[in-house]
């Protein structure tokens, strides 16, 4: 290879899908200068659902290997592998089968339980974990569809949750009004925190990735500060923990099950996101900006306004996750850790769900199952909970690297048969 630069656009795009008589040359973008990050994003989001499923499968297989090689019984048996290889094999099967078995039992259905309701208790508990992941995932996904990387889920959850929590323990509102006020406060808090990078990007061109990451730190330390002042700190306490949420403002359990009102609400959010993206004028404009901002601008769409709108809407959804954490999960008073990593897991959920509302729903559900079942796995099989995190991370890796997954399964490239 010499220094002669290959033309960037030379990897012709999607020649299989051409109309008869059409030349792939014409498909080449005349300007190859599409923003790099956007191109990668679009490539990731255009992958098929099959690819998502395969990514999960591969990740579970690698997770199994990890479980096997760290299992004490396997290590012991492998010490005399050549004498009795059968021991090692059965130890591996025991370790992996046991771990994934309890993941299933703890996260989905417990067949050993007596009665139907007792059997699906794990699934219902998983819905509780899935709820904030789905909400925040939707927020991130809407950002993606508008071409924005909202990495600030953590900050938006912290601010939204803090506002919801403050309303929840301090305002003397009656009955359901209290819950509604707290929820709305959470949505607004998230929206406000997400609006900052939106406005900065629209006005000055500051990149939202950098700004949202920095705002995560600011939100964290701001919350830390207020948790050490009477604003948020529980009266008479000297630890940085807030007062408990008032019973009025807690999301009520449904029919005595582990599921609270948050889950039906998040299903409504999925429907709202689907309507927004597919059926509304605003969603149409957001998608147009996300796919091709210069064409959108030429067609009279106000790209800056759409950037701000996308961030605000994204923040509303993420803010719901924050409110849910404080009003549904950690109701006995929150610290700075109540975001529970949801802000970042939501990015994974959005990617796994290909930024489509129902895709995000199922991806969030899967992660909820992982999380809930992971606890059982840790307790029953002494498998470190981090294995679950590794599996989740691998899923992102495989989704971000579709060619790798395709190569493993020998799938045909959907686009761009490069010569």
């Amino acid at each position, binding site marked *: 290879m*010499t220094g002669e630069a290959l033309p960037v656009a030379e990897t012709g795009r999607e020649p299989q899908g051409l109309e008869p008589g059409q030349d792939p040359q014409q498909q080449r973008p005349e300007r190859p200068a599409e923003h790099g990050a956007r191109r990668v994003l679009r490539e990731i989001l255009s992958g098929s659902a099959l690819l998502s499923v395969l990514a999960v499968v591969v990740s579970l297989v690698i997770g199994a290997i990890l479980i096997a090689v760290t299992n004490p019984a396997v290590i012991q048996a492998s010490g005399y592998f050549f004498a009795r290889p059968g021991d090692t094999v059965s130890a591996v099967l025991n370790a992996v089968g046991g771990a994934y078995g309890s993941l299933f039992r703890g996260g989905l259905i417990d067949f050993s339980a007596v009665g139907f309701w007792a059997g699906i208790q794990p699934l219902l508990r998983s819905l509780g974990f899935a709820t904030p992941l789905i909400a925040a995932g939707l927020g991130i996904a809407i950002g993606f569809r508008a071409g924005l990387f909202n990495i600030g889920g953590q900050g938006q959850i912290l601010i939204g949750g803090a506002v919801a929590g403050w309303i929840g323990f301090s305002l003397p509102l009656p009955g359901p009004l209290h819950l509604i006020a707290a929820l709305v406060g959470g949505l607004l808090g998230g929206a406000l925190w997400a609006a900052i990078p939106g406005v900065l990007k629209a006005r000055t061109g500051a990149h939202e990735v950098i700004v949202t990451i920095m705002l995560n730190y600011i939100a964290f330390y701001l919350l830390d500060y207020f948790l050490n002042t009477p604003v948020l700190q529980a009266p008479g306490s000297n630890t940085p923990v807030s007062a408990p949420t008032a019973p009025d403002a807690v999301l009520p359990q449904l029919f005595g099950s582990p599921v609270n009102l948050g889950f039906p609400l998040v299903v409504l959010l999925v429907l709202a996101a689907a309507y927004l993206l597919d059926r509304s*004028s605003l969603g149409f404009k957001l998608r147009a900006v996300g796919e091709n901002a210069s064409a959108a601008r030429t*067609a009279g769409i106000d790209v800056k306004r759409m950037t701000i709108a996308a961030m605000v809407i994204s923040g509303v959804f993420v803010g719901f996750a924050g409110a849910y954490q404080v009003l549904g999960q950690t109701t006995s008073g929150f610290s700075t850790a109540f975001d529970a990593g949801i802000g970042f897991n939501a990015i994974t959920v959005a990617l796994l769900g290909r930024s489509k509302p129902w895709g995000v729903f199922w991806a969030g559900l899967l992660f909820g199952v992982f999380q809930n079942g992971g606890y059982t796995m840790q307790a029953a099989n002494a498998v470190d909970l981090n294995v679950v995190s590794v599996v989740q991370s691998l899923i992102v890796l495989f989704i971000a690297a579709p060619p790798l997954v395709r190569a493993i399964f020998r799938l045909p490239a959907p686009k761009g048969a490069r010569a």
Partner: protein
Amino acid sequence: MKLELRGITKRFGALTANDHIDLVVTPGEIHCLLGENGAGKSTLMNVLYGLYQADEGEILLDDEVQHFSGPGDAMRAGIGMVHQHFMLVPVFTVAENVMLGHESTKAGGRLDLDAARARVREISDRFGFDVDPDARIEDLPVGVQQRVEIIKALSRNAGVLVFDEPTAVLTPQETDELIGIMKQLRDSGTAIVFITHKLREVREVADRITVIRLGQVVGEAEPTASNAELASLMVGRAVELTVDKTPARPGADALVLDDVHVYDLNGVPVVDGVSLTVRAGEILAIAGVQGNGQTELTEAIFGLQPQVTGRIVLDGEELTGRTVRQVLDAGAGFVPEDRQHDGLVPEFTIAENLMLDRADGEPFVRLGALRLKDLAAFAQERLRRFDIRAQGIGTRVGRLSGGNQQKVVLARELSRELRLFVAAQPTRGLDVGSIEFVHEQIVATRDAGVPVIVVSTELDEVVALADRIAVMYRGRVVGVVPADTPRDVLGLMMAGEAPQAVAA
């Protein structure tokens, strides 16, 4: 060096871009590869240059079979290519660009720039190129940059030189100079492949002509063949090269540009005091070589340029400083120069692209909700009327051919009540059939009494469409002349020379 291609076949999935193509180019001959956009010329040359691997067939140089796994192999074997888009590093000097990729070094790894300089001078002198080895590429005019590409190829002792659409970026004068250079190279024994779809250049320079259509060689022609003969070979049917139009019946002044300046991000004027008037029912063609401010001028009209001074008035209504939305609402329609970049959202369906500029209100939006049924009915009607060849309105625009993509843009822009229509490079990269259709639509719009601006770098198109011609050079209007102005005068104006005694 003799080049021979035997039975080259290249497939992309179901599409055969090259179908058993045979081609022989002997030393000391200029061989023209003529074909429409998308006929497979560039694919063939990319196979030759090692960028693509042929599925069948072989490449022979001086009767020896070659196997190229990349451009490096092709260059070592003696094939040089002058790409349409130059492969030069703008901030490097000429000598640095020429040595790039096969740098020679002195002791301690220091670059031997002197050797490169000497090489550039030697080649430059041999062919009378007049290129300074120490000039930075970005400071050079386009025509000189192209010569640097040629020097680069020659410095690697290329025996076969491929010119891929080399005149697309040149003024007519620069084109003439390039043709001179090509003839000189031919006379010194180089085998030259000249890819183009411009008939006039072919007849001027070619020793032999091979015509390609739909990936197949459809015939050889003599340079003495008429334009009409070559064109019908290219497209497979007799085509009209001229546009059928009646004389314009211009009405009152509609669009008035008064001392318009457009500044780029560095504050440099790219449009420098343009004053123009377009009357209702006439086509004003803006001619000029790419990059002389035409793009920025049209963008300024539509509120797409951030720094504009002067006045832009449409039917007495001030457009200066308005947003894109307001300009569109004032009744302006726009076909942007780069349809894939500015005109369409490739991932969107045809229907979605048809409502792109009306995403806010009637007829496709009510109470913030899309009215998908109305949109579908509208899109069906447009699909039929504009003869957009697609499976349906749900087809993604990115999967359409260039001609059908442009029809989608036209179908959208011409579906509103227009008081101004601006089409920038409306037929760039289109096949002859689509060009005809686009031209008919533009003339029909004019005949409906709309003032029309057509920006084009193709003189043929300018002459065919225009009722009056404005020529731009370096951000200024060199002059506004009648449509029947001779081509050589227009060519001189495109190079910046004011027409003596010619007034609008």
